[in-house]
């Protein structure tokens, strides 16, 4: 069964002569538990596509179904709650809340859902991400790799079915990049999550189950399954 169905998504910014077509009729599906990499040159529309899938932006036409739910038919509040519970985001710039420590950053999405964080699960995530001895540290006291691990932890805490990662290794050196990818893969297997990751790094992309190629707003390669 497909977890994600992207159907004929188009996105145009501006209008008239200044209109820029960023995505042109993009369609693809991702089954549950798959780790998909999206590659393409800068400005090809990868991040816009990810933003559409994560409902951070709305398409000009087309629709996106996550686990059978047509997300753009939901009102703003319902969509936000759906996104909070079902989609985890990992950004290149980490986007941690600088005022909160590691543990608080990881627990924050749960608090937004008016729930108490499951202490055992937080501990487990901290252990998996090797952050146990850093849980009281603020983001500025951590290295780039550690901050990205916190961002992964935050994406995992609500046990989302889909994780969207926008160049999670873009700011990291090769050792940290490998660690982060390895953690993402481990998490995806352990928690049965589907991951869609944008990357420029071909060797990282090669570790994914499938690689999608975006060129000038068009999905040119639906990707073969890596051996």
């Amino acid at each position, binding site marked *: 069964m497909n977890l994600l169905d992207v159907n004929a998504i188009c996105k145009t910014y501006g209008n008239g002569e200044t209109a820029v077509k960023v995505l042109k009729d993009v369609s693809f599906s991702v089954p549950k538990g798959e780790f998909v990499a999206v590659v393409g040159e800068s400005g090809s529309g990868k991040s816009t596509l990810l933003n559409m899938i994560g409902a951070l932006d709305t398409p000009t036409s087309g629709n996106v179904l996550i686990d059978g739910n047509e997300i753009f038919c939901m009102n703003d509040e319902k969509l936000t*709650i759906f996104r*909070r519970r079902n989609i985890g985001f990992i950004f290149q710039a980490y986007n941690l809340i600088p005022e909160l420590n590691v543990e608080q950053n990881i627990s924050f999405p749960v*608090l937004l859902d*008016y729930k108490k964080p499951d202490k055992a699960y937080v501990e487990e995530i901290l252990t998996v991400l090797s952050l146990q001895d850093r849980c009281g540290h603020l983001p500025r006291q951590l290295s780039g790799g550690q901050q990205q691990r916190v961002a992964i932890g*935050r994406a995992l805490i609500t046990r989302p079915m889909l994780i969207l990662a926008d160049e999670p290794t873009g700011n990291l050196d090769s050792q940290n990049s490998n660690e982060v990818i390895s953690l993402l893969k481990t998490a995806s297997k352990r928690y049965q999550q589907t991951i869609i990751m944008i990357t420029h790094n071909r060797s990282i992309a090669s570790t994914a189950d499938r690689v999608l190629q975006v060129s000038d707003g068009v999905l040119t390669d639906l990707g073969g399954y890596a051996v």
Partner: protein
Amino acid sequence: MNSYLGLVLEYAKVHKKKNRLTVVCIALSVMLITAIFGMADMSLKSQTEEAIRRYGNWHVIFSDISDSTAGEIAGRGDINVSSWLGMADETTYQGKELVVQSCNEKLAGQMNMVVSDGHYPATANEALFDRQGLEQFGLSISDVIEVAFSDGQVRHYTITGTFRDYSTLKGSDAHGLQLSTEGMRALPADLYREYYYVKFNHSVNINGAIADIQAEHSLSGEQVSTNVMLLGLMGQSTDTTMLEIYLTTGILLILVAMAGTFMIASSLNMSVLERAQFFGLLRCLGATKKQVTRYIRREGLLYCVKAIPFGLLAGSIVQWVAMFVLNKLNTQYLPVMPSYQISWLGVAAGAVIGVLVVMIASGSNSTRYIFCIYKIYFIFAINFVIIIRTVI
């Protein structure tokens, strides 16, 4: 942290300096509003006290009315004190001017005539004599005083008590003999005139009540005279000069409230706008618009908790200092204003405008609502001007 709103406190802990500017802006606005409203309140209080001290605490005088009309007026539910006040023709006692008056004990109290020794005259030949007079003429309570009236007759009154001198007597080097109403009415009719004094209850529409009495008893305008000064200070005068003062005061207070609102709303808007990325991040993490609004509102509440008490205290101190300086500098033209008194009107204006504007400015559609507040101020000011101009 048990709730996402706990981030408000965590943020405040880290950004103390940044928040301080917003808190100071709110506190300054509250201080401005509290101090100016407080000064206006205190000035009004002192002038009211002065007017009562000088002219007495009454609202309207009816002249040339019958006892039965007076009785019907006294029976109204909106009247606090009423009495005939009699004034005898000018006379002298041992070469000094003697003011002979009468009224009931309740009205005497309102006219600052407080019995300090003895008791209020109850019969026709009993009277109160002022304390300075007793001392000057070697009289004491229960002595009999002989008063020669303009009809050539000498009448005898037993002194039943004395009262503290009041300013009118002191100012004219005169003495006062206070009779009971019966005592005044025992004089020949051409020796005195009587007027019916009325003080209404609190929160009565005095002009409405007077018009009602006039209509009910067919009284002409000449039979009615009001205590213009006191009614003016109570905000119930239709006198042109008073209305001009209301207009100026009202416009000034609206301007102060507008300035305060502008300062608070601007500082809060800036604080929110410069953190657009932060609120965007909260939305990405799954905060709904309502949750972001609630977050900003909680921040506003935190600002209120820090800024408003400080603003109210600072406003009261500024008001005290201003009063002290005014009292020192201006002893001739203005009555002495109460020092070190808290103006609850000033405090309430500062707190209400402060909390209201902070909470509105921190809510969703804040710009629209703040514009609404400005609109209300403008509409209020314009209507105020129109109403007063129409009356003038």
